[in-house]
């Protein structure tokens, strides 16, 4: 129990410290509940997108096409919403997301080229498909009456359900164990009888569930989804990907499911904090980059840091002893 408490405190230390820093700098803008609540709500969609990215990322796949797949799912959902209402939106988004992620998984399995190269090519193709589906104006809008999942409390309930689903799939299924086995050593996993190709296809497919949900929430929250071209859809991936990388580092002290959310929440504190501090957009990217590097360096080098710390303590003791 004590161990769990310590780990929880250690995990929460990251967002709390970052929040306190901004609170100290701009208390008048950062010290209100609305600000905190906005940060929480803004973390939901990128967290669910990050869950979609995480499956592939854990087993060594890099999926560049997630943004374009999300757009197609959103566009199809939007088009179906116009005809069949909320049910059409949900169904359209799910069917298109699952179909396209399954297709990506199968192509990855068949072509046997690096996933980075394959998904980059597919992203370009999917972007054109999305544009064509979006029609003349290049975007699809839904009626406000259909945008029921974009605001609280619905979005919070969906988030909790997605967190639970990811936690279950990742920790309590054969797929989850196989996924980690493939991610840690593909050759050993194969030798142990794991069907690596099937695991990778499933990684894309299960990612599609979260992708569909993030597409629906994006559509409901923004009221529209716009097509992207010339790899513009790739920008959707960056912040969720950073949170996955941070969560993988935090895994020592925190389950990946919560780690992704904690990381995304922390990133959003920085994002809103810098806006509230009146800093320009370019500076925000610099700070996010530095933050990522610091956290990665600190967590990846814990042993070296411990050695340096013990050396420092030893030297201090010796010096202290000499003086007396």
């Amino acid at each position: 129990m004590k161990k769990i408490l310590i780990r929880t405190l250690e995990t929460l230390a990251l967002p709390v410290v970052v929040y306190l820093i901004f609170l100290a700098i701009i208390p008048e803008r950062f010290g209100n509940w609305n600000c905190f609540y906005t940060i929480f709500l803004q973390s939901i969609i990128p967290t669910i997108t990050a869950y979609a990215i995480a499956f592939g990322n854990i087993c060594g796949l890099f999926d560049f096409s997630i943004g374009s797949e999300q757009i197609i799912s959103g566009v199809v959902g939007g088009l179906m919403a116009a005809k069949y209402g909320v049910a059409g939106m949900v169904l359209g988004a799910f069917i298109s997301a699952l179909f396209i992620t399954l297709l990506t998984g199968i192509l990855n399995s068949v072509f046997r080229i690096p996933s980075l190269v394959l998904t980059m090519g597919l992203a370009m193709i999917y972007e054109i498909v999305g544009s064509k589906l979006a029609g003349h104006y290049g975007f699809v809008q839904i009626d406000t009456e259909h945008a029921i999942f974009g605001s609280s409390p619905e979005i919070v309930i969906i988030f909790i359900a997605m967190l639970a689903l990811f936690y279950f799939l990742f920790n309590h299924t054969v797929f989850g164990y196989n996924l980690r086995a493939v991610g840690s050593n593909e050759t050993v996993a194969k030798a142990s009888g794991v069907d690596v190709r099937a695991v990778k296809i499933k990684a894309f497919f299960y990612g599609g569930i979260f992708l569909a949900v993030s597409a629906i929430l994006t559509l409901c929250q923004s009221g529209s989804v716009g097509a992207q071209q010339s790899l513009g859809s790739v920008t959707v991936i960056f912040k969720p990907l950073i949170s996955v990388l941070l969560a993988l580092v935090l895994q020592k002290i925190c389950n990946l499911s919560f780690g992704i959310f904690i990381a995304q929440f922390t990133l959003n504190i920085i994002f809103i904090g810098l806006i509230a501090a009146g800093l320009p957009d370019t500076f925000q990217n610099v700070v996010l980059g530095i933050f990522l590097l610091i956290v990665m360096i600190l967590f990846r080098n814990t042993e070296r840091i411990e050695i340096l710390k013990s050396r420092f303590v030893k030297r201090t003791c010796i010096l202290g002893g000499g003086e007396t």
Partner: protein
Amino acid sequence: MNLRKFTAGVLSFSLAASLFAAVPVSAKSEAPEPFKIGFPWDTANTDPTWISIYNNVEAVVEAAGGELINVTTDNSADELINNVSELISRGVDGILLMPAADSMLPTVDAMCADAGVYWGTMFRTISDEAIREAMYESEWFAGGCNEDDEACAANIVKSMSEMGVTDLGVINIAKGDTSSDLRDKGAAQGAEEAGVNILNTTYDISVTTDMTKTIESYIAAYPEMNGILVLGTYCEAAIPTIEKALADHDKAGEIKVGRIDFESELGTYLSEDTFHVAYGGQQQIDPLVSAVILVNQVIGTPLSEDGPTNIITPYLEMTDAQEAEDFNQYFLGEEAVYNPEEIKDTMIRYYNEDVNKESVEELISTFSIADVAARHGETK
């Protein structure tokens, strides 16, 4: 009877004389020598504005009897230089492009000079003094159009100030882009003159999720914010996304919203009084007049004899739903904002000797949404 015959004769003579007088002495009915204009443009982009830009350039080239050759581009400096090289190898007589940066222009000019190809620009001014001077001395640079981005940004901030805006959240395209920098400068100047406080500016938003996030962050971080100004963005459905974010926070209508560059959904929000002012329309007239400058140069009848021609195209103001509807119909449709006959008669010197830089400037000074709607309405 004699008087009647005499009167009829006089009238017939007057009518015949007036017919001759109406045709310029130098007007040519035959087309000029066949020519090709190269145009690097992203024709895969389905955005109606991007399509309308292509349509307006094409209308000018074809009205003058030429052929438009397109190469697909991402409009980056490197890609545009490759595009110029490709178009030259395809034997074009002139190239129209939207420069990504001043620094690429000397390279473009050198390539065109070697090949004996005229070139022109659209949408962009040349800010770098040394490059500008060198380009305006070039024999092969035909000139181009740009807008007074700075004045436009200053004016829209002042318009919003008159609507009661005191604290403004701003969104703009990426820094380093000539228009973006000028609009920033203009907005700062307008804000200073009108006593408006610019709270923050976020750049280079390209997807709706980031747009929502930025607006929500502004609302959370700046409770005093009472205006949002989009100086520019390449994000699809920017205004619907902003309006949705504002509505979700019960701020629609309370926070005044303005933008530079028109988009298709403005009419809905103007009629709901949740969107308040837009300046734009230059996205159609600028490429059209830029193409006019280049085509006249290529066919040997330049608009001005003393070097490259630079024309400042106007920004139009949109504040009501009817204007928005007309804009969607007449600016974003398949037709250009001037029809082929109008282009031929009033913008191509080969067909009408009276056409020159001043006459084109005078013509576009009356350009407005109502003007295009009236002219297109007549032809339908």
